[in-house]
């Protein structure tokens, strides 16, 4: 794989598609506008990699700007976009500078935008106030920066502010062809990162060297910086999770199992691929678990049919292992601009909040179900990005499930 020419950004048609879909969702929710306020940065609000990246995702989704506030009227009028210096891009020709020539509060500019659009007594849908079904799933308290938002509330005392995460979220939930192409490119870059990891992973290699090599490979292919999450430990033993280079004294050793979430970002969309790597031969007792996971991976894809509710898949996966005297649990979550849902994990294996939501063509997930031995001493997860088509789930990059043994 080689680096390609610079990505030129999403088309204006893609902008119009997103804005129209959000407006339609807002109309159904009887909102006069959707308001994306200033949100806290990921370095400060860092509950997880996904969540750090997702804090400002709604603004980026609607503007292609890293940090933007947006007021999008439901009735079709042009939105008002605010960013820090008023710098335009291909989607937004005339954003407003929040801070003028000096660094100041975003509150006044956001309040003025709402007032100018006639929202002083309106029903205003706000994103980032709390957790949505398909976005901000990890941010139970939301991600809005308090000070600027409190100013807005004070300036518009007669308006009604209501959560609108699902208004934007369910627009983000269904990807366009342009978005899927970007996710596919990201998955290819992440796969190149994994290939580099397999090349470098040898006993005696510093773990920081391994980490840096993988990041370097993905960056040279043009991915935005999104940390590899690396686990490294003797097979069967727990590992801490490293989202920065592991301590310099840590060296890979024979018998170590490397598991990881290798993520790459293209077009703002985060791909993730997983590939366990064992520095040694796979023990016999692991093989049934790995085989179960492989079967489960493919069987699950077949059940991700448009129109079918999630609970069919969830219950199928969670019962799948028992038929073979083993165990299995669902692990999947949405792909997109960050903190995309649903978030289906072993910590919430029934996923009551999402059971009745149907699959739709254009949904994208990272699909990585977990298989366990009966005593749960062995667990194995493998997977990567998929897209929902009329025929069910399809991987965006073709790789072979299993454990890579480096001998």
């Amino acid at each position: 794989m080689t680096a390609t020419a610079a990505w030129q950004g999403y088309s204006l048609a893609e902008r119009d598609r997103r804005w129209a879909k959000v407006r339609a969702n807002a109309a159904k929710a009887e909102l006069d506008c959707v308001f994306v306020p200033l949100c806290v940065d990921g370095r400060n609000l860092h509950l997880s990699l996904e969540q750090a990246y997702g804090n400002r995702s709604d603004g980026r989704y609607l503007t292609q700007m890293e940090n933007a506030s947006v007021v999008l009227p439901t009735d079709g009028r042009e939105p008002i976009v605010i960013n820090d210096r008023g710098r335009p891009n291909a989607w937004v020709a005339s954003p407003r500078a929040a801070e003028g020539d000096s660094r100041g509060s975003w509150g006044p500019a956001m309040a003025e935008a709402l007032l100018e659009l006639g929202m002083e007594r309106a029903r205003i849908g706000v994103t980032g106030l709390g957790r949505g079904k398909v976005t901000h799933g990890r941010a139970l308290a939301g991600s809005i920066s308090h000070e600027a938002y409190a100013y807005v509330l004070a300036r518009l005392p007669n308006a009604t502010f209501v959560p609108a995460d699902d208004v934007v979220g369910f627009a983000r939930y269904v990807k366009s062809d342009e978005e899927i192409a970007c996710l596919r490119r990201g998955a290819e870059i992440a796969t190149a990162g994994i290939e580099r990891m397999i090349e470098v992973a040898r006993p005696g290699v510093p773990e920081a060297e391994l980490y840096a090599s993988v990041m370097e490979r993905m960056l040279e292919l043009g991915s935005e910086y999104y940390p590899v999450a690396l686990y490294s430990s003797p097979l069967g033993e727990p590992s801490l999770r490293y989202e920065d280079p592991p301590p310099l004294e840590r060296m890979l050793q024979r018998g170590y199992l490397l598991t990881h979430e290798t993520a790459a970002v293209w077009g703002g969309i985060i791909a993730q691929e997983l590939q366990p790597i064992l520095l040694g031969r796979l023990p016999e007792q692991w093989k049934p678990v790995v085989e179960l996971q492989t079967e489960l991976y493919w069987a699950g894809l077949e059940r991700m049919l448009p129109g079918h509710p999630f609970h069919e898949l969830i219950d199928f996966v969670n019962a799948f292992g028992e038929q073979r005297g083993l165990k299995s649990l669902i692990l999947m979550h949405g792909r997109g601009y960050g903190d995309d849902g649903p978030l289906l994990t072993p910590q919430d294996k029934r996923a009551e909040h999402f059971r009745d939501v149907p699959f739709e063509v254009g949904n994208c997930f990272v699909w990585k179900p977990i298989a366990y031995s009966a005593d749960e001493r062995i667990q194995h997860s493998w997977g990567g990005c998929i897209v929902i088509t009329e025929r069910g789930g399809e991987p965006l990059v073709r790789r072979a499930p299993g454990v890579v043994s480096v001998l």
Partner: protein
Amino acid sequence: MSSPREPSRGGPTVHVWNGYSLAERDRRWAAVRAQAAAAGLDCVWVPLGDGVDGRYLTQLRCSSIVLPSDGRDAIVVADRGSRNSWVPEPRLIGRDWPEPMAQALMDAGMEGRRIGVVGLHGGVLSHVRAADGVAVHSALEHVRQRLPRAEFVDATDVVGRVRYVKSEEEIACLRRAVEIAEAGVDELIAGATPGVDMAGLYARVMGRMLRMGSEYYPLALSLDGERHTNPAAGLSLEAGTLLGSEVSAVWGTQVAQQDQPIFFGTPSASWQAAIDLQRRAFERGLEIMKPGATVGELLDGIAALRTPELRVAVLLHGRGAGDDGPLVSPRSSGEAARSLRFEAGNAFVWKPAVTAKDGFAFTWGGTVIITSRGAEKLFQQEHGLVRRA
């Protein structure tokens, strides 16, 4: 470092560097308590959203802390099994922060008291680029409702004032971060050849610093004034290009920065005057930044170097755990910090900017600390514009 066993299906425990001593913890906590008491606060509270101050006070990746001013034990709420030698028994939670934070404040007896909220607003000495602060709205509102008689006031600079003066441990870490950033600059110079792809160059520099153990901090490369903080795939370095850089590395949470411009071609003769003036400004600043001198004296001293042909401006900001102040730049004039005094233990990136009438702008510099004898440059890079044929 201890390796806490991961609870079954409890989510992963994320490692972060946590190598400061218990004495360093006690120094920080004592200094924050003293500042809080002087400000008439009953406690300092770092809420959800202020990850930088949370890490400063706990060495945990994500935490909220209530630190009573009267010396009682801190209460720490932490994420996903996090614990370390500083905070061996935090209150562990999943993703739901508001009620555990409220409970911590109530357990510390803060209902009806005066609570200093760190990160509520931007400060002069920390969160200097976040005028609106970093506190998460919904979480903060929940806590306020649970403690309706408490008074919540901003305490950003209460902690910022402590962060402003570094300990020997912190300076040792900053020195290491500078070494890594300088290695990044070396890699940048070695890799910046005509025709090279910007993404490849970005990757090479980041790879070098990650191998040396730096935490991630975005490399900023400016191509003819356009700033890129991620790989600019498809762009290449061509003749006539001026490549600016902010190469940052992190060790022990201390963020170092080095700035080294590179030009592809033969610079015009008039540029040398700007480069020479920038050197004088850099050196003059080192002379001025002695303990007891003020930021205002630095502003005036550098402004005096201006010539009819060349503008010169102070570009200075704090170094430390992140978003450190003061911030003096073309967008932040420094007037708010004019009376701030330099102290032994301060750390800055010092990189005055000179602009010629033809638009050529030259900024060069790096990390410096203030000692009892004056300013000390922590880096070795020679002054000047690196030229590539």
